[in-house]
């Protein structure tokens, strides 16, 4: 595995504000403010928490208080949603500085962003918008990732998108594009298995073929989420990456297969809308943890056999 994507827990040095918490092989959940009392009641959880960076870019107040309390006892993954890495315009320096400040302050175990764009000119669209895959966009995205990684002083994990349209101008496959981005920038990858399933359904290709072409050796985290069902102009199924329900059975099967191939990976259950009570979200993470643990045993046995 590439050194840059082998994430070590930040050492608890004299300069660290928080203890190091290992994240290897753990399932986690999105951290939602309304769950804080229930989480604190239960005490330290087994898993990790992922937060959207932008929600913690205010100066102070309850968000920072909550994240500080969560970070003290758990590994935290910092997930940027608005860097607009996939956009044609330069990275917003002010936003990047805020992002770096969060990385410095909370010492997250994982840091990730999206292969997408969300700002054009001065308008922020609050959605992960798609880009064509060409040599030109490849160069631009690689430049943007370099800039982010230099600014924060560590590699990021880049997440594969869920998409609904294609760009006829594209000259590369998404997996080819992502593979080349990782090679050029040294970034790791966040494999969103739900996005693979959603995009594969929407564009009529096999999710297994996508995974076969995906550089699994660069993956540092997995995302799983629920999706919604609509139809396209022809009346065929169109899946929406809605993050508003449980993970579908088909996605669990794909996930099992992915973990079987790349070994236990930090795995996040994303749930951002119609948010359930904490025990429901925790149970979803426990389901992922069970799959991780089952494969962890296999991987340990293989390691023992290999060392003989």
């Amino acid at each position, binding site marked *: 595995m590439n050194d840059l994507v082998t994430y070590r827990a930040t050492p608890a040095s004299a300069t660290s504000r928080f203890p190091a918490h290992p994240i290897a092989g753990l399932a986690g959940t999105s951290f939602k403010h309304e769950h804080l009392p229930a989480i604190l009641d239960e005490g330290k959880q087994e898993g990790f928490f992922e937060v959207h960076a932008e929600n913690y870019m205010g*100066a102070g107040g309850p968000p920072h208080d909550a994240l500080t309390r969560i970070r003290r006892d758990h590994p935290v993954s910092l997930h940027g949603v608005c860097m607009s890495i996939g956009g044609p315009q330069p990275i917003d320096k002010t936003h990047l500085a805020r992002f770096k400040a969060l990385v410095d302050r909370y010492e997250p175990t994982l840091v990730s962003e999206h292969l997408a764009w969300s700002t054009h000119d001065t308008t922020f669209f609050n*959605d992960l*918008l798609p880009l064509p895959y060409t040599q030109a966009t490849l160069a631009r995205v690689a430049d943007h990732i370099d800039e982010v990684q230099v600014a924060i002083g560590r590699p990021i994990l880049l997440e594969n998108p869920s998409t609904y*349209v294609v760009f006829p101008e594209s000259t590369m496959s998404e997996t080819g594009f992502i593979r080349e981005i990782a090679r050029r920038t040294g970034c790791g990858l966040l494999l969103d298995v739900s996005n693979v399933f959603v995009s594969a359904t929407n564009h009529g290709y096999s999710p297994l073929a996508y995974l076969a072409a995906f550089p699994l050796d660069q993956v540092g985290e997995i995302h799983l989420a629920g999706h919604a069902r609509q139809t*396209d*102009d022809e009346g065929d199924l169109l899946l929406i990456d809605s993050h508003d329900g449980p993970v579908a059975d088909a996605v669990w099967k794909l996930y099992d297969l992915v973990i079987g191939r790349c070994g236990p990976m930090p795995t996040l259950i994303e749930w951002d809308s119609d948010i359930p009570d904490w025990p429901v979200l925790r149970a979803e993470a426990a389901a992922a943890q069970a799959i991780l643990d089952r494969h962890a045993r296999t991987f340990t046995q293989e390691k023992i056999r290999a060392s003989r």
Partner: protein
Amino acid sequence: MLPAELRELDRSVQSSYAESFAPALLDPGRVTPAAVAGPHGKAATKRYNVYRNNVTASLINALAAVFPATQRITGTDFFRAMARFHVRATPPVSPLLFEYGRDFPDFIERYEYAQSLPWLADVARIERAWLDAYHAADAEPLAPQAFAPIPPEHLGNTILLPHPAMRIVRSRYPAVTIFSANRGRDPFGQIEAADPEDALVTRPKLEVVVRHLPPGGAVFLTHLMSGEPLGAAASAALADSPSFDLPANIAGILAAGAFSDVKFGG
């Protein structure tokens, strides 16, 4: 072609997709961008509309999150229709959505269908101030006994430093009472208040508190916030409201945690 020319060509290709994709996102009058298509020759209209819907609905949701009492007053359908107009006319310019909606109260004030609710914009202003207080920098508020060591002859020249979370919202309507009744989920009876109410919003620790200011209180605080000394601020408040009660107002702002530091004798 030379590498430099190639790079220039690349740039023009790169800028085209966002320029083609973005304008129709918030404009239902525009057609599906030419840059996108469905796979295998399929149409892209409903597919592109997923992005349109994501953008519009998520920004309406962002406004609903900032203005929950406003939404409770108008009902969800009314609020979402009103918010949709605003989102299309004034989309956010920052990725920090907790900064969004600063122009929304003014929009509400002008919104044709909200004219029968003249206090609605002020309730929205209190909600916007509430969220600013929520995210404001942390600071220790002045202790209740902070004025004790100030010699009486220096009191008039004393200058107070506003706490980062402190906000004032003035209203010609009973906006604080209406805000408070609609901010929670509990049912409430007929609102009898009719007098103008000014709001003081503070967050001395972690909890945002909205108070109804006494007569002259808003003028007093506004002058203090602009850096004027206590004596001048009190005179302005008295000129505005003859019933202005200085000791009660000082006790009130200390109890509310409206200021974080005090300077005197210099």
